[in-house]
């Protein structure tokens, strides 16, 4: 049987339907994948310099510093100075990668990021680890649930949130080849290696990673894997969901999003970011103007999160596969009846029928 998946490693495909994906899949925090890619870039391009702000051990940019000490600059705990200095370096033709956590990159140093980097369109790459609620245990001060929204709102910004280690490495090389500021968002906690080397990473081009015609799930960064798990859960109910890895939040791949909307008539976005101003907003803005259809956003609501193991925190705050499944079922119900696929209709009806007698086990699941 032909696989519904594209670029997804066979072993991942096998694990998606099990509950053991995170336990068994080869995983890595994408901050480490970034550090590996930066090291390779350093070997290839003498203009690449690495700027740190006291989290070089955490981001493993110490690898670059050890190999290229003359091209590595640790500014200490001074993100504002690092960002504006990166801008100054870029005016002379260097390609600075400024490394810090997303809360500091997008908020502490935002004035420098806006006025000294983006306004003059300087060739600075902002490498932001701990993006979204990927630092589970660290708590709210280190959980950058707004970084993608903030960065998306800056004129001329390019914002990339890759889903896995493989695409992260590709994103870093693509960012280096692009002339202009790029914000790269990485995870603190490990995410599974999803893709093979054929993954066609291109800035601004989303990638269809699972075929399906009943609904489309458009996700980025660490929620792509949750979207893939959700698609498997839905498939068991006869609903085939298309999954799109929308790694570039800005510029949005409007063509692919519109095609998904037209093909499926029901769209769910999934992002580990507050629902204001991120991927859900970007997709909603596009669809409401060009092809309004039932849509639902999965993301952090109007709340701060809390400390806890990564997967437990994102589950409590509504960002895991089961929440995506729920959202897909909701949009399918809102689909104009003529357009609801027969399979999906049946699935919803059967769920509705079995709802009442299964009250107790549902409550048990929640716990």
């Amino acid at each position, binding site marked *: 049987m032909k696989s519904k998946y594209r670029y997804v490693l066979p072993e991942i495909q096998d694990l998606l339907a099990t509950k053991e994906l995170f336990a068994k899949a080869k995983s890595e925090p994408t901050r480490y994948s970034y550090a590996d890619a930066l090291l390779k870039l350093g070997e290839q391009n003498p203009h690449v310099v690495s700027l740190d702000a006291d989290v070089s051990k955490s981001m493993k940019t110490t690898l670059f510093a050890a190999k290229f000490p003359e091209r590595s600059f640790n500014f*200490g705990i001074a993100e504002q*100075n690092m*960002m504006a*200095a990166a801008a*100054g370096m870029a005016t002379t*033709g*260097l390609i600075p990668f400024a490394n810090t956590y997303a809360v500091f990159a997008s908020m502490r140093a935002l004035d*420098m990021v806006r006025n*000294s980097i983006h306004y*003059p369109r300087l060739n600075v790459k902002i490498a932001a680890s701990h993006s979204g609620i990927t630092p589970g245990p660290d708590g709210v001060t280190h959980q950058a649930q707004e970084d993608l929204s903030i960065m998306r709102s800056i004129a001329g910004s390019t914002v990339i949130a890759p889903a896995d280690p493989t695409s992260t490495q590709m994103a870093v090389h693509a960012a280096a080849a692009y002339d202009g500021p790029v914000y790269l968002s990485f995870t603190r906690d490990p995410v599974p290696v999803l893709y093979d080397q054929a993954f066609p990473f291109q800035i601004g081009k989303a990638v269809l990673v699972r075929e399906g015609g009943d609904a489309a799930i458009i996700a980025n960064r660490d929620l792509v894997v949750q979207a893939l798990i959700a698609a498997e859960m839905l498939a068991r109910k006869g609903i085939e969901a298309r999954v799109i890895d929308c790694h570039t939040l800005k510029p949005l791949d409007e063509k692919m999003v519109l095609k998904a909307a037209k093909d499926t008539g029901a769209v769910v976005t999934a992002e580990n970011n507050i629902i204001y101003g991120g991927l859900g907003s970007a997709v909603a803005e596009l669809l409401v103007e060009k092809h309004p259809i039932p849509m639902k956003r999965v993301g952090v609501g109007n709340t701060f999160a809390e400390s806890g193991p990564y997967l437990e925190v994102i589950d409590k705050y509504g960002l895991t596969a089961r929440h995506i499944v729920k959202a897909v079922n909701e949009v399918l119900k809102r689909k104009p009846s003529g357009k609801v696929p027969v399979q999906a209709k049946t699935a919803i009806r059967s769920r509705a029928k079995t709802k009442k007698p299964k009250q107790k086990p549902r409550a048990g699941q929640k716990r």
Partner: protein
Amino acid sequence: MIQAPMTVEELKHMAGIIRCDIIEMICNAGAGHPGGSLSAADVVTALYFRVMRIDPRNPGWPDRDRFILSKGHACPVWYAALAERGYFDKSELATLRRLNSILQGHPDMHKTPGVDMTVGSLGHGLSAGVGMALSAKLKKKDFRVYVVVGDGESQEGSIWEAAMSAAKWKLDNLTAILDRNHLQNDFCVDDEMPIEPVADKWRAFGWHVDAIDGHDMEQVVAALEAARERPGAPTMIIAETVKGKGVSFMENVADWHGKAPCQTEADQALVEIRRCYCEV
């Protein structure tokens, strides 16, 4: 084209012309920052007409010395110096702050030939200068970086982040000039948030510190030229200045930080400036 390097006498005369340009520009625009432009006029004149290695016909020359007006709101002085030095036609000065002008309300490196860094939000320029000076060291280039910092601006924490880093990396190719005019937007600097003892602070941060009268052209030139010869650390030149220097009714008046003179005030200012600087 004006010949540089100029003698001290020629520089004094040019500083007068630049002061006149500042008054005319801001009066014409109906808004802008005359006080801090006038206080920095002598330092900026010395840099552009004597000290810096630049080529107005080639503003992007990779080996040029860089200048950053970190107190970007004082850009009329920068624009006037660039125009008088030949980076663009003097007629552009009349377009300051107008729609489609190459002269933005705060400096934009992509709109104005000769502007080496986009600035305006205070506390960025010295950091950008640190980045440029680090680049010069890495690329083994001998260009120098000059940054004018405001005394009010020195209340920004990022100035001191930049100060620490310049000393850490021994950026002796970086010279900063503190335009110590004692006034900021609201009130006196040392009432609003005191920065004294400011020389001791910079010394404690690991910089060479020089203190001069920022309106004595001989001292200005000597300090800027001496800074080139001091190895191992960046230099901070504390230039004691008068906000609104050259215009009697603007001098030491905080309200002239960000207010345009009307035509009558401008006319009086031009008479005073010409009498003081330009009667050679």
